């Protein structure tokens, strides 16, 4: 029988060949647009005019001089902060409670909490717009029976950020919860039992044993929370407030959409996108630094 030999590079070619479909779509729909956006950020253009004016760095300079940029950046950080509390710290603690403390009903809670993750955030946003209407929604009406007039959150700086973050969290909470739960649940029970025998409080078990032992997943969820929050946070902003009041709820992602599709400042929008990407890249670098490098994968 003729024996087949490993043709030196054949495996390499095959390995790479498997990537061709993926690389093809990514090249067309991600990498090329990415560089195009970078390119456009040095121009002034309104999307249709045949003339693109090269303006050098002036889009970036304009951004840094614009007080709106500062506001949008600070909004973005507030969004991140709220997301971290609602979508990271809370599910972390709750996943601990479920994995270590709760004795029954785990499967039901897990299933129900994850459910909104499969539902459209647009639908969710429309629903919450009604439910949370401070004048006419159920919550507003209840408050009124106690003689309280709720603040009009969609027009109140700060509060609007909180409510929009909560709407985004409604969808994303379940995913983070499940992933964190898995990490916490994978910690050998003996370790926690020993701690309990030693009379260590639940809080200390969480802080000193559970958190460090699930830290790799913890960091993964932390970063996914920030990034997904920013990407998905766009939808409720667009559906509910369109960035208002006076940019009080605009995030970086929304603002670059706004610049491009409301004002047709393609150059400025691109510059803002580039800025956003730089921010994301820093987060990604952190992700790789903490998660991919420092974690030992068993083969």
């Amino acid at each position, binding site marked *: 029988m003729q024996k087949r030999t490993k043709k030196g590079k054949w*495996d*390499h070619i*095959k*390995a*790479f060949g*498997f*990537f061709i*479909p*993926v690389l093809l*779509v*990514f090249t*067309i729909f*991600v990498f*090329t*647009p*990415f560089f195009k*956006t970078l390119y456009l950020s040095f121009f002034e253009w309104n999307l249709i005019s045949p003339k693109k004016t090269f303006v050098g760095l002036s889009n970036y300079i304009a951004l840094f001089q614009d007080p709106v940029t500062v506001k949008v950046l600070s909004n973005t950080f507030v969004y991140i902060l709220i997301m971290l509390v609602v979508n990271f710290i809370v599910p972390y603690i*709750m996943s601990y409670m479920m994995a270590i403390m*709760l004795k029954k*009903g785990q499967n039901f*809670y897990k*299933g*129900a909490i*994850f*459910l*909104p993750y*499969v*539902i*459209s955030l*647009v*639908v969710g946003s*429309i*629903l919450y717009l*009604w*439910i949370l209407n401070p004048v*006419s929604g*159920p919550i507003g009406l209840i408050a009124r029976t106690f003689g309280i007039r709720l603040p009009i959150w969609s027009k109140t700086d700060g509060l609007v950020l909180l409510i929009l973050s909560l709407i985004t969290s*409604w969808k994303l*909470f*379940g995913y983070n919860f*499940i*992933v964190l*739960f*898995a990490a916490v649940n994978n910690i050998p029970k003996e370790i926690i039992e020993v701690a309990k025998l030693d009379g260590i409080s639940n809080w200390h078990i969480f802080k000193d044993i559970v958190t460090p032992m699930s830290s*790799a*997943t913890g*960091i993964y969820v932390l970063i996914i929370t920030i990034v997904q929050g920013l990407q998905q946070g766009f939808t409720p902003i*667009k559906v509910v407030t369109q960035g208002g009041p006076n940019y009080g709820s605009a995030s*970086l*992602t929304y603002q670059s959409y706004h610049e*491009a599709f409301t004002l047709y400042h*393609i150059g400025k929008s691109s510059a803002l996108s580039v800025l*956003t*990407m730089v921010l*994301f*890249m820093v987060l*990604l670098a952190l992700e*790789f630094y903490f998660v991919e490098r420092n*974690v030992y*994968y068993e083969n």
Partner: protein
Amino acid sequence: MKIKEHQLGLHFLFILTVLVLLFPLVYALSNSFKTLNDAFNNVFSLIPREFTLQNYIHVFTRLDFMRIVGNTFFISTTVTIFKIITSLLAAYSLVFFNFKGKNTLYFILLSTMFIPFTVTMIPNYLTISSWGLGDSLIGVLIPQLADVLGIFLLRQSMRGIPRSLIEYAQLEGASTYNIITGIVIPLIRPNIISTGILFFVNSWNEYVWPVLILKTKSKFTLSLALQMFISSEGGTDFTIAMAVSVMTMIIPITLYLIFQRYILDTFTTSGVK
């Protein structure tokens, strides 16, 4: 006795969380059976004062709703199948082949998760239009294929396959094709199913892009059907919008309930092992 109270408190907390998360769904369902008048004036009651199917009837008679569902289904299914195949190949290559630049490639692909969609929106619109795919279902689905999530999830699950299984098969002379179809796919089938469902659901819920691309009613997807009843100038027809929302939610929720175990299992391994 202290223990019991403690459990009660925990259950209270979790039930509250579930209620908060699921209330909007119940609210949507309840309002979709109300008249608009009822919805405006009967905010509290989840049971309609007069139960009506009018909203659903309206949706079905006014819009070619089955076609809209069909379009959405076509897009989501096609996207799912293509993405599963391409992600599977890429993930296999990442896990079971060694080649130069493998980690760099993965890093680059993974980093695309972090690119805000606003970056790619304008150039993609131009690309799709210049291919003559504006206002077409294909134009809606093609850019969705560029998604690294599947590669990420399937790579994670393939890493769980003991290497010796693959080596044994190689030793027996199994080709890569044999290994993928005969060993890898059966072994990570639950993960493939749940990744597929996730693809399906994400594509199903896709909003900004179809709304940007589609203009002809016969090509509409559910996102546009919803948009049809929300107009700033004409006002939102809330109860009809709720009927559309309910219709939009039914399929993802059904899929989720059927495959709940697979999905939860997959996500519990999608973290960092």
